Each structure stands twice: as structure tokens, then as C-alpha cells.
């Protein structure tokens, strides 16, 4: 058996592997999945590790079956997870709706790739940001976490299991190809954590696991606390829907989590989530002159050489920009209050994301009095720090170029 | 002799019992069940051989046969 529980180990892991490790540490003992690029490493690792850990693994016939099987397993008493990417995530939507209405705690990992449809199997995107929130039909609230590093792939997977049990709701880990496939040194723990599956007060469905003599009825129709259908009774159904949503909306402050960098004296804020938070952080570090051995060489940027055709390089000086970063960890429910507080003193907010500019709409809605600038990038390439800084210069009108002769 | 009861709250008046009983103990009646349809009446309980076919075949579990 594993050594003493909780002992810290430093290892180099890929994001997807870290996710699988995190799930095992969080006590996940059932995994059903279907291979899909770029999430395949999770199912690959789970196939062996899960059975070694005493859990059950099954490769299902499709993603629909995978999502259904984990719900079934959770009612059997096993903490359960599945992992997929865009097209598979689309197939899982009906099961996510079912898990939401029956208040089943499950974790679904979506390692995003470019879409629509088959799209870009091997490249990254953040195009599923709204599907993660609004994917299934009907009114429901959901918790979505967006990791931006391999360590966060590990930590957020554990957090996803905790939140799913606490709020009895499906939790989506919205990773993307960049964090899924990158390798970093991270700290992981030995053994396994026990996440208590306590009875929650604000839950409006039956909660007892199966085979405990509770005669639990898990009902996909709107239902009461005993699982009896109320779909045909308008006032009860309305109450159910409000309660189901309130469970999350009333607890936004408990769920919400953001990280801020250099926001104390910032004039401009970058609001980013997922892998895009990485170049955003580097942009902040560069503008602020914060030395980072790993990133420093990248900033000797030589621009416009080809265009100008002369042996002269132009290096832009960004040091006058007071940039800060707000990294959104729990993208849904939208952390309104935290974001308002964090961006209190800035006038301009840049929202870089790898889609046509979706999350920026939500930021715009909340930060009405600020200049919210979407910075969309599609095609699979992630933003570079310089692109982000250039955008800030463009928006703030503080473009100063310094000529340097080689 | 068997004691055959038909639950007024369960019966929906489908008349399956009329045809499955080998002794034709059930007969149509004008009495209404809670569902609003005509429920059968027990006519000759003395003939009952307690085969319990009616119990099994009543889709709504309305019939009970006690020996």
C-alpha cells in the first residue's frame, strides 16, 4: 500500500497525468471514459492506476455512456470522474443536465481543443467556456474551474471533488490542450484524501447513496425531496428550479476564487483564465521588470525586421505600464464581487482569451464603468506576452518606441 | 371458498380479470372505481380455485385473493 498519507513529493508530470493523480488522491474510485485527443493521457493513466488503487475502470462505448456510468457509480457510492475534449463534452451534455437536476456530485474534465465539430484535435482553445456553463438544456447552475498550470491541474482536480460533494453538483474542470500537454515540476501528495460526503441542507433531491435502505429515487424529472415527480405541478416545479439555482448563486462567495498579481498599484488589469493566464502573467512580470529566469530570454523581442528591411531593431519599452493580472480560477459561477473588488482602481481591463471573445462579455456586464477590451485569438496559438502588452499600449495610447541600433 | 377483494383505489377498469379467470368469477358491474371507470364485481367467489391468475394479471394490483 501507499506510504504515509499526505507526504509531499516533487515530480515532473504532464498536465493530464497530474489531473489523474489529483483524482486518485481525492478518492476518485471510478473512472469511465472514451479516448479523445487531447485528453487521452487521463484515461490512459486511469486505466491502470485506478485498478491498482482498488477502484473500477471501464472504457465505455462513447462519451454519453461514460458520463452516464459515472453518475451510476456515484450513486453506488464511488467518487467518479470522466475526462474528454470538445466533441465528447458535447455528447455528455444530457448527462450533465441529469447530474445537475438529480444533484449528483461528479467531476468532468474537458481538455479543450479547437472547434466547432472535429475542429482542431491537436491545438488549444477556450471556445467551450460558455458550453461549460450553458451546455445542457434548462436552467441550472454549475461550477467550472480553469487550471493554468500543471500544479493547478492537480490541485483543482482535488478541489473539484471537494466542491462537487459540498454542493452536490457536477463540477467541470475546464482545462485546455496547453495545460493538458505541458510538463512541469509539481508537488503531489502520497496516499489518498477522504472527502466527506455529508448531507447538505440546501439540496432539494434525495441524497442517500444506494443500498443503505433509504429507497432513494433518482429522478430526472423535477422532483421533491423524496424523489417523487413534481414536473406536472407548476408552483412546485418553479420552486424547485429556483432552489436548484440558489444552491450555487447564494454561495458564489464561498465558491469563487481568483488570484491577483501586482494589482495593488495597477492602472490596467488583465483578466485571464486557463492557459492564457500564463502569458498574461509573463506580460505583467515583463512590464514590471520582475526577473524570471525561465522567461527572461523570451523578451528580447526583435520586431518588424522583415517589414522595414533595415538592420535596425526596435525594442518597445513597456516599463511605464502599470499592469496587473486577475487570474480567474473558478470561471463559473462568475466571481462578480471578487472581480469588482480586485479591479476597483483600474480603468482599463483587457480580457485575452483563445476564442472570439466570450468571457469578456461577462466581464463587461459586471464592470460596466470600465473600459473592457476583449482580446480574442483564434487558431490554436496562445497569446504571447508581447501581444498582450502591445494591446495594452494600443488601448491606453501610451505607445512609446525606443530605437536601438544593433 | 375464497375471499376476493377488488381495491377501488387501484382498479382502472381494464377488464383483463374478466377474461383471465378460468372460472369466470368476475363480471361487469355499474360500480365506479376512483379512476372513474366501471370496475368488475365478484359474482361467484365459491367457484374460486385460488389459481391467483387474476392477482398476477391485474396490471394495477387491485385484486387480492385470500383463501
Amino acid at each position, binding site marked *: 500500500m501507499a506510504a504515509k498519507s499526505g507526504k509531499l513529493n516533487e515530480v515532473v508530470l504532464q498536465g493530464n497525468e497530474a489531473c489523474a493523480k489529483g483524482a486518485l488522491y481525492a478518492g476518485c474510485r471510478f473512472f469511465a471514459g472514451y479516448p479523445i485527443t487531447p485528453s487521452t493521457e487521463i484515461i490512459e493513466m486511469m486505466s491502470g492506476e485506478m485498478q491498482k488503487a482498488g477502484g473500477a475502470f471501464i472504457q465505455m462505448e462513447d462519451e454519453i455512456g461514460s458520463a452516464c456510468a459515472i453518475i451510476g457509480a456515484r450513486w453506488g457510492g464511488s467518487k467518479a470522474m470522466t475526462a474528454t475534449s470538445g466533441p465528447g463534452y458535447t455528447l455528455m451534455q444530457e448527462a450533465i443536465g441529469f447530474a445537475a437536476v438529480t444533484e449528483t456530485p461528479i467531476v468532468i474534465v474537458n481538455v479543450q481543443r479547437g472547434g466547432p465539430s472535429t475542429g482542431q484535435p491537436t491545438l488549444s482553445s477556450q471556445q467551450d467556456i460558455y458550453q461549460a456553463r450553458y451546455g445542457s438544456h434548462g436552467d441550472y447552475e454549475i461550477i467550472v474551474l480553469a487550471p493554468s498550470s500543471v500544479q493547478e491541474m492537480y490541485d483543482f482536480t482535488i478541489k473539484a471533488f471537494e466542491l462537487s460533494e459540498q454542493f452536490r453538483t457536477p463540477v467541470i474542470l475546464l482545462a485546455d490542450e496547453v495545460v493538458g500537454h505541458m510538463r512541469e515540476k509539481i508537488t503531489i501528495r502520497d496516499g489518498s484524501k477522504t472527502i466527506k460526503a455529508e448531507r447538505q441542507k440546501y439540496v432539494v433531491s434525495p441524497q442517500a447513496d444506494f443500498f443503505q435502505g433509504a429507497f432513494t*429515487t433518482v429522478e430526472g424529472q423535477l422532483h421533491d425531496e423524496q424523489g417523487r415527480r413534481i414536473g406536472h405541478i407548476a408552483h412546485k416545479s418553479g420552486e424547485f428550479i429556483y432552489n436548484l439555482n440558489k444552491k450555487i448563486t447564494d454561495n458564489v462567495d464561498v465558491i469563487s476564487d481568483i488570484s491577483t498579481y501586482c494589482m495593488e498599484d495597477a492602472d490596467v488589469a488583465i483578466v485571464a483564465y486557463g492557459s492564457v493566464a500564463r502569458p498574461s502573467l509573463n506580460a505583467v512580470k515583463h512590464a514590471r521588470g520582475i526577473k524570471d529566469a525561465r522567461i527572461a530570454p523570451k523578451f528580447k523581442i526583435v520586431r518588424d525586421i522583415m517589414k522595414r528591411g533595415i538592420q535596425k531593431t526596435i525594442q518597445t519599452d513597456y516599463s511605464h505600464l502599470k499592469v496587473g493580472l486577475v487570474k480567474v480560477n473558478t470561471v463559473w459561477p462568475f466571481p462578480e464581487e471578487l472581480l469588482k473588488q480586485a479591479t476597483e482602481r483600474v480603468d482599463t481591463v483587457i480580457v485575452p482569451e483563445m476564442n472570439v471573445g466570450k468571457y469578456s462579455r461577462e466581464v463587461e456586464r459586471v464592470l460596466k464603468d470600465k473600459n473592457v477590451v476583449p482580446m480574442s485569438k483564434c487558431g490554436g496559438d496562445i497569446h504571447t506576452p508581447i501581444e498582450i502588452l502591445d494591446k495594452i499600449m494600443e488601448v491606453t495610447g501610451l505607445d512609446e518606441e525606443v530605437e536601438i541600433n544593433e | 371458498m375464497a375471499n376476493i377483494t377488488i381495491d377501488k383505489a387501484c382498479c382502472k377498469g381494464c377488464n383483463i380479470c374478466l377474461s383471465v379467470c378460468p372460472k369466470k368469477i368476475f363480471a361487469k358491474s355499474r360500480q365506479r372505481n376512483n379512476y372513474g371507470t366501471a370496475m368488475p364485481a365478484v359474482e361467484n367467489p365459491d367457484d374460486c380455485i385460488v389459481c391467483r391468475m387474476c392477482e398476477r394479471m*391485474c396490471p394495477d394490483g387491485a385484486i387480492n385473493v385470500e383463501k
Partner: protein
Amino acid sequence: MNKLYEKYIKKESLPTLFCPGCGNGIIQIAAMEAMEKLNCKDDVACVSGIGCSSWIPCYYKLDVIHTMHGRAIAFAEGLKLARPDKKIMVFTGDGDCMAIGGNHLLHAAQRNIDLTVVMVNNYIYGMTGGQKSPTTPIGAQTKTSPFGCIDEPMNACKLVMSLGASYVARWTTAHPVQLAKSIAEGLDHKGFSFIEVLSQCPVQAGKNVWGEKEPAKIMEKYKEYTYLYKMGSADPTGAMAERNADGLIPIGLFKHDDDAKEYLERVEEKLAEIGIAR
């Protein structure tokens, strides 16, 4: 009230939402009888999909998941893997099981995973108001085949038998004793048990499929149009055939293979073989 109702039915949920004369109630009682026979109530959980037949277990005093359309078997597989010591019974209909849930049926049968699937075949989509299902006979007029159905009906028993399901039987609602016995055998059997029940839908299928609206008369027809297939009889293909030479539908026990390895047995065997302690 039926004596078994006391033990097995949540009486506060009665009456059931089935139409008068619906075969689902007969199947509901047969399954209760089967559980009573095995005395295994505490070890059974039910999973069902969407459709009239999927409401059968919702009245049971058991742990029940009433899932999404077609997905019952997938849910049941997850539940079974999480609790291998328990018996999982799946109630599903012809459309639920073979149309939208066909993929899950294929793979569960192929795995020979220990589930007991009771497929209620009423030849129609009853809940949505009488549309063509995968089993609707050729020529039958339904709401979505107004000029008569042109598709060859699917044979679920043949399908799962060819894939490796290890217990396969077909009965009708006119044979409740045999049906109860069969469900009990299925629950007891280790492996994928598939029991197809030909059921009457007097409201939607009655007139168009059977030319008869009276539930009792449709059940008479089930007796008339079926013949008892005996396992190991002279005609080995009899169970697979849609109908025999006289145009009769075979019913009875088609396959009961106790030697076939069940999915979880194979998993445990493999893990033991490579030395993973559980």
C-alpha cells in the same frame, strides 16, 4: 390490493400513471414476484430509461435511478461496477433499448456484464403518442408511418444472443408465471440477462398493430401468435428466427449459458493474474 404491494410498492405514489390495461403493471408484479422468490429485495437496485415501461421501477420501495432516454444500461454498468456484490435490474422499452440506447445494449451484451435487462416490447412509442418504433411490424400504421411501416422490425433477442449475452428469454404479458420465473433466473444468473416481454399498449398500438383495442383480447392474440420454443430442440435456429414456418413468434428460454465468463469475473481474473491485490 395485491399482497406484494405492501412490501414492494410506495403506496403513496399510487395509482400508477399507466393507462388501463397496460402490460407494464403485469411486468411490475412479475418482477416483484421474482424478487420475492429469491428473497433478495435488499440487494436489488433498479435503473430505467425514458418511456412508459421505464416508470415500472419508480413505484418500487427500492433504490431507483430513472435516467435519460436510452441510457439506462450505461448508468447500470456504472452502478454495477461500483457495487459488484449487488443485483442491478434494468427496465427499458423497445425504443429506449434498441433505438436511442442501441449502442449501450450492444456493448453491455458483448461485455456480458452482470445486469438483468427487462425489455418491454409494446411495438410502439407509447408515451409520445404512438409513433413507429424499431419493432413495429411491417405494414402497421402509426403516427409516423401513416402509409404503413416499411422497415423490417428488429429482433432484440437475436441481437443480444449473437453478441454474447448469456441469458436470453422472451415471454409475453399473457405468461406472467413464466415471466416471473424468468426474471428470477435472470437476477440469479451471473452475466448479461436479457428478458424481452411482449406487452400490450391498448391505447397506441392496439388498433393499428393488433387490430384490437381490448387489452384482454390483445393478450389472447399473444397466446395465439406465439409458440413455446424449447431450448435444444430439433430446430436450433428457432430461437433466432423472427417467426417459425407457421408464422408464430418463438417465446421461452432461448439461451442460458452458465459457463460464459462475466465481465467483472474477467477483470478480477486479469488483475489476479498480473498480481494486483484488491
